[in-house]
């Protein structure tokens, strides 16, 4: 099979690393060769962060090249816009409908772009989800990232059981149930 390219982008501290670990786990279980690349260190302090995940029969580089992403998972609107050009022409963009102002915007030195999702929808297949509200409904705002993962899961070839098995293995025991629920909510979200 041809190598598939997934990206997760967001703001440092949003929990992109847990999401990529679950993704990597399900792909490994599926018998694929997997490579992932993460950002540690300074950018984790509220900066723009990106994780690359690639899987297939034989994977060389651990990064996704511009114009090559099959699925782009964005935890924040501005970050979706920042990395959208990494998508293939027929790639899918899954975006958490949340706004986090970067410091230049807070200071008034720059403007947060309006209508990001509408504009991106003209060029790409965009699925927008208010994952934070969904997570809050479940009683834990932190699981918003697994809600998004549930939405993204429909664009990858793994079964719900495979996903749940990885969540059980990776997430701390007392948070397994709520993460499984969050995943199910995301999965049921979109047509």
């Amino acid at each position, binding site marked *: 099979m041809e190598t598939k390219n997934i990206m997760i982008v967001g703001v440092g501290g949003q929990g992109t690393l847990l999401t990529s670990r679950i993704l*990597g786990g399900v792909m490994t279980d599926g018998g694929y060769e997997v490579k992932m690349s*993460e950002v*540690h*260190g300074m950018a984790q*302090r*509220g900066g723009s962060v990106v994780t690359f995940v690639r899987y297939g029969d034989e994977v060389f580089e*651990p990064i996704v*090249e511009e114009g090559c992403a099959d699925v782009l998972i964005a935890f924040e609107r501005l970050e979706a816009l920042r990395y959208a050009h990494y998508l293939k022409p027929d790639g899918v963009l899954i975006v958490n409908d949340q706004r986090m102002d970067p*410091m230049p915007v*807070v200071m008034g030195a720059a403007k947060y772009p309006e209508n990001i999702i509408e504009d991106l929808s003209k060029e790409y297949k965009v699925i927008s989800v208010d994952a934070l509200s969904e997570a809050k409904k479940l009683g834990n705002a932190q699981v918003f990232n697994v809600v998004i993962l549930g939405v993204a899961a429909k664009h990858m070839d793994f079964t719900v059981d495979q996903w749940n098995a990885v969540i059980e293995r990776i997430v701390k025991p007392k948070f397994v149930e709520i993460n499984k629920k969050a995943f199910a909510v995301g999965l049921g979200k979109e047509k």
Partner: protein
Amino acid sequence: MSESKKVMMLGNAAIARGAYEAGVKVSAAYPGTPSTEISENLVQYKDDLYCEWSPNEKVATEVAIGASMAGVRAMCSMKHVGVNVAADPLYTVSYIGVSGGLVMVAADDPGMYSSQNEQDTRMVARAAHVPVLEPSDSQEAKDFMKEAFEISEKYDTPVILRTTTRLAHSQGMVELCDRIDVPDKTYERDIAKRVMMPAMAKKRHLIVEDREARLEADSCDFSINRVEMRDTKIGVIASGIPYQYVREALPDASVLKLGMVNPLPRKLIEDFAKKVDRLYIVEELDPLTELQVRSWGIECIGKEIFTVQGEYSANMIRQAVLNEDLALKSPAEIPNRPPILCPGCPHRSVYTVLNKLKLHAAGDIGCYTLGAVAPLSVIDTTVCMGSSISTLHGMEKAKGKDYIKNWVAVIGDSTFMHTGVNSLMNSFYNQSTGTVMILDNSTTGMTGHQDHAATGKTLQGDIVPAISIYNLCKSIGIKNVTEVDAFDIETLEKVVKEEVAKDELSVIITKSPCVMLKQKPITHKCVSDPDKCRKCGMCLKPGCPAITKRDDGTIAIDDTLCNGCDLCKNLCKFEAISDRSL
């Protein structure tokens, strides 16, 4: 372990696993991105080996040297700039050689994700005449660690395993093996080999030269240097992560994949060059391989089409080698999102006071370097670990004590223990009148919370007596040493004013644990009252990411981000911010 087991591993975790399997018994390190996770992973094997955080990379390297002399396999790990700190023992242990195998892991940072420069460790290794291995994925990271120890013992030399950020922080499949039982070498006194004074060192220098020549010849047959013949129109010499980019971009090209990048296998390279029409050398950062290959009279293409800056990619190679138009879309022009201090960070409180007093700060390396970024913009200078105190001292000696009356030096607790204390001793000895602020958040913050000699806990989790930074400063002889709560902005302002005015050396230790350590439970969040808000912008000055402006100019506090430090509440003159208990 009877059957083979494959697991996903971070490059750094694979290096740790390789060290474990190679039978390493002692490891020492100072945290530094992108090398930190090596020690953090190694500690899981603490029943079989000893590992520590040392105060700096020089000490860590010397600890490893001592362990090697005592006859066991030993290692140290650090980021590229740490190699500079460790350069002194490295250059000389190259002469001494090893008893138990000795490996230094050096992590370069092309693209400077978390570093102050983009130096290439291969340059240092060449100058120190130390062989360098360079893995290209997690599996090789583990395998090459074991190979490095074999080479170290066979050739009586320390070996550097060089990684880069992309390798260190990428995950790939790794096949696990059992730990090798390596018997300790018996210690035999050998003064001529281990005491490096001129008479002995002159003889050892000859041995180093001979060793390098043997390694160069032998490495033509090392299995980690591999020729992959495919189409011969394009031939590429590559190593490390760039090898992966080459395979992705030029799947049909022939490749000489170097596992050892110093010394280079001359004959292997000459033979490969003869077999291909055009020879490319693809190496990130400096053109070390290229210059060496050219010096042998071999035609090749390198830095005239590849940059010396940043990371490479398959697209970049496609464009440079094949002149392909990839019809890429340009990225949107949108606001940057620079890293910032966390909500509730004690450094923000200290910087707010320094800004109010219109002070300049000579900065240092850590999270608090982010104080250079707007809106705080309080740090004027940052060079390297420990430099804040000594650069301030130099300014004073250049221009006199009045020149630094609106300056302070700021340095974190871990950085102070690393090399800052040396600078402070110099300031005392040479009669500085400056003010040094030690921002003590009880951890090494930027690298992800590692312990150090002043936290009272070791890498292996043992509780030990903590060095008191206060007593340490006092013991130097400094009269003016004051401890202040970092969030007590009134007292802090008063103390800073007083100490800066003095014509004597002062140390102010601001204390409050890093908010990410979660030592203090978060009891409340701050909430704003738009009716009371006068839109004065006072609370926005410290640049807290939890605070944003509403469209009407009043402020809003994001309660998923707020950690309830009360800095904004204490700055508000109109009582528009209050606490909401949790």
